[in-house]
């Protein structure tokens, strides 16, 4: 088996054939068997296979992009399940972006945040309030709802609002560390939700528990974005931007500072790293991804209410990060995709199937035991297994490997050699 794998690893042509075949087969099976969720998931997992190939990054991005932009939507588009597939794919994208945001805070900077969904809520409400007539209640000027064209601006506004609150939360919270930080952020997450739940009086800003209905759909060149298949592309574009941003930050001065703070705060400070500023930046950048996706979420659901932003959501996003591998971008993407698909497709499909069986009188499963209701239970078991057998996650974080040839300098040493000679003489004299 090992031998066999290494042969494939060395042979790029073989890899190309395998991945090509895999994509074609899964594409065709999805195309022909529209109702097969399995085919849809198999086509998606071609991306995972692609990750393990040894092609250059550019080639991987091109193939992956082609699968996501063209093949997947096209193969799914032939049947009635099209929109539900795209709905799942869109939500996967939203959760991946959020998990990548949380990964910066938890995985890179090492700050445990249990209230991360608050930033998602902030983004969602930012667009929700101004894209419904709600804003008329308290805004002294302007006509609301704003048109769907404003959505594109709101992606950035949502990003900024979330980042701003990330900083505002961070300033008092970063005085505490470790477990205390987790408790305080947990509190923050709940406070934001409760504020949104109750901010319908004295001035009606969020419409309380009733939520905000009929949010304006995004509009571009006179086309309204109404269907998941259209949102899919919005999410895809944002997600790719987010992945690029995270990758670049991770291996930059800023990312190194985050990791240094995670590894040892005192040493990080001794290296000249401004502790508070570094942590605040982690909070702000992480939150901003979440805020952007909140705006998209509000527009996609056309309805925003506080029940979408409970503690369970925060925990779910954290599970994605831990399951995938803290600090590892590919890991977190995989973790987020797995958890979302498990939630939305596998568990619901299982429930449907069991319901079908009990309807036909084959077996009788009590309603309380239906898989869709056991989400937390299943998460719990998964987490325990991972804590025991794979604590670094599915795809553990990897350090960058540097190329020695690039590092070796041809232009001379730290100090030129003549000085070095003098120095050794100097030492002799001292002795």
């Amino acid at each position, binding site marked *: 088996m090992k031998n066999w794998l290494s042969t494939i690893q060395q042979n790029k042509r073989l890899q190309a054939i395998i991945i090509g075949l895999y994509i074609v087969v899964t594409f065709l099976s999805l195309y022909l068997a529209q109702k097969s969720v399995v085919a849809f998931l198999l086509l998606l997992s071609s991306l995972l296979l692609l990750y393990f190939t040894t092609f250059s990054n550019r080639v991987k991005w091109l193939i992956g992009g082609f699968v996501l932009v063209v093949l997947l939507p096209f193969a799914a588009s032939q049947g009635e399940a099209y929109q539900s597939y795209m709905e799942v794919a869109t939500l996967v994208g939203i959760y991946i972006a959020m998990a990548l945001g949380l990964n910066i805070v938890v995985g890179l900077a090492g700050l445990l945040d249990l209230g991360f969904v608050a930033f998602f809520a902030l983004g969602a409400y930012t667009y929700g309030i101004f894209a419904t007539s709600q804003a008329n209640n308290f805004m002294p000027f302007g006509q609301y709802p704003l048109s769907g064209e404003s959505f594109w601006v709101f992606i950035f506004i949502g990003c900024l609002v979330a980042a701003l609150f990330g900083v505002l939360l961070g300033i008092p919270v970063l005085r505490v560390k470790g477990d205390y930080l987790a408790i305080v952020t947990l509190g923050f997450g709940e406070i934001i939700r409760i504020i949104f739940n109750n901010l319908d009086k004295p001035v009606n800003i969020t419409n309380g528990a009733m939520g905000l209905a009929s949010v304006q759909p995004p509009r571009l060149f006179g086309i309204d974005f109404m269907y998941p298949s259209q949102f899919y592309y919005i999410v895809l574009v944002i997600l790719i931007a987010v992945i690029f941003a995270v990758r670049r*930050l991770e291996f930059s*001065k800023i990312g*190194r500072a985050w990791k240094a703070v995670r*590894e040892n705060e005192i040493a990080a*400070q001794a290296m*000249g790293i401004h502790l508070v500023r570094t942590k605040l930046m982690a909070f702000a950048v992480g939150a901003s991804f979440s805020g952007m996706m909140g705006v998209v979420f509000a527009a996609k659901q056309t309805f925003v209410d506080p029940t979408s932003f409970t503690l369970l959501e925060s925990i779910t996003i954290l599970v994605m990060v831990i399951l995938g591998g803290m600090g590892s971008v590919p890991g977190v993407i995989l973790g987020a995709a797995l958890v979302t698909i498990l939630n939305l497709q596998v568990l619901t499909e299982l429930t449907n199937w069991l319901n079908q069986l009990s309807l036909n009188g084959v077996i009788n499963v009590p309603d309380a035991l239906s898989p869709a209701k056991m989400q937390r239970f299943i998460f719990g078991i998964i987490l325990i297994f991972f804590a025991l057998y794979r604590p670094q996650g599915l795809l553990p974080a990897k350090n960058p490997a540097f190329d020695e040839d690039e590092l*070796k300098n041809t232009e001379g040493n730290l100090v030129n050699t003549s000085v070095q000679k003098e120095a050794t003489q100097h*030492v002799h004299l001292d002795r």
Partner: protein
Amino acid sequence: MSILTVKNLTKQFGGLVANSNINMEVQKGSITAVIGPNGAGKTTFFNMVTGVYQPTSGEILLNNESIVGLKPHQVTKKGIARTFQNIRLFGAITVLENVMIGMHNHLHGGLFSTILNLPRVRKEEKEARKEAYRLLEYVGLESFFNEEARNLPYGAQRKLEIARALATKPKVLLLDEPAAGMNPKETSELTKLIYNMRAELDLTIVLIEHDMKLVMEISEHIVVLDHGEKIAEGTPDEIRNNEKVIEAYLGKGAATTAS
């Protein structure tokens, strides 16, 4: 010329006086050792100079400019770097990146220029990698550059701490027990390295060390602390024959028996 001046420095933790009225001057370009029995307050002294602790009273001047009240990262910016007694490397990160973290204040890539991957940032990163590698060569760790720092042998970890401190481009380097846990061969390499750094990198070095052979061999000036107070200072020869020092290390009566 004195580069680092300490005046009446006192630190109290509640009722415990860790450092009391310490005065000292460190000459530019010198190698100064701070010695004393365990619990004498040597590391507390270092922690005050680097801003980890704030002194209860007293003054610390770097080039005649007070650095009391500055945060550790600001002290580093002013030009004081340090290593730690209990090694504090960034364990899960590669050796090369550990050194690059030391360059933090000399790199200028901001948030947006990094996300946009501007050519200026790319160039700076490339230069930083080369520079870090040169520093590793300087301390003799270049073969480990892609290893995780926590996997290095003990002596190498101590050297990496030095390389990392050098990356901040300090004027004064504080070494907290650099030879602790090293074998004689490693210690003699370290001695050479300390000499070389002083001569070639225009550094002033202050070190805490228990290895008396190293201390006596390397330092031009020695300050002895005991119970938080300075009990003696002078050249190695003066210290070797100082009764108070012998008493502090060996107990009362030892001085008279020895002489």
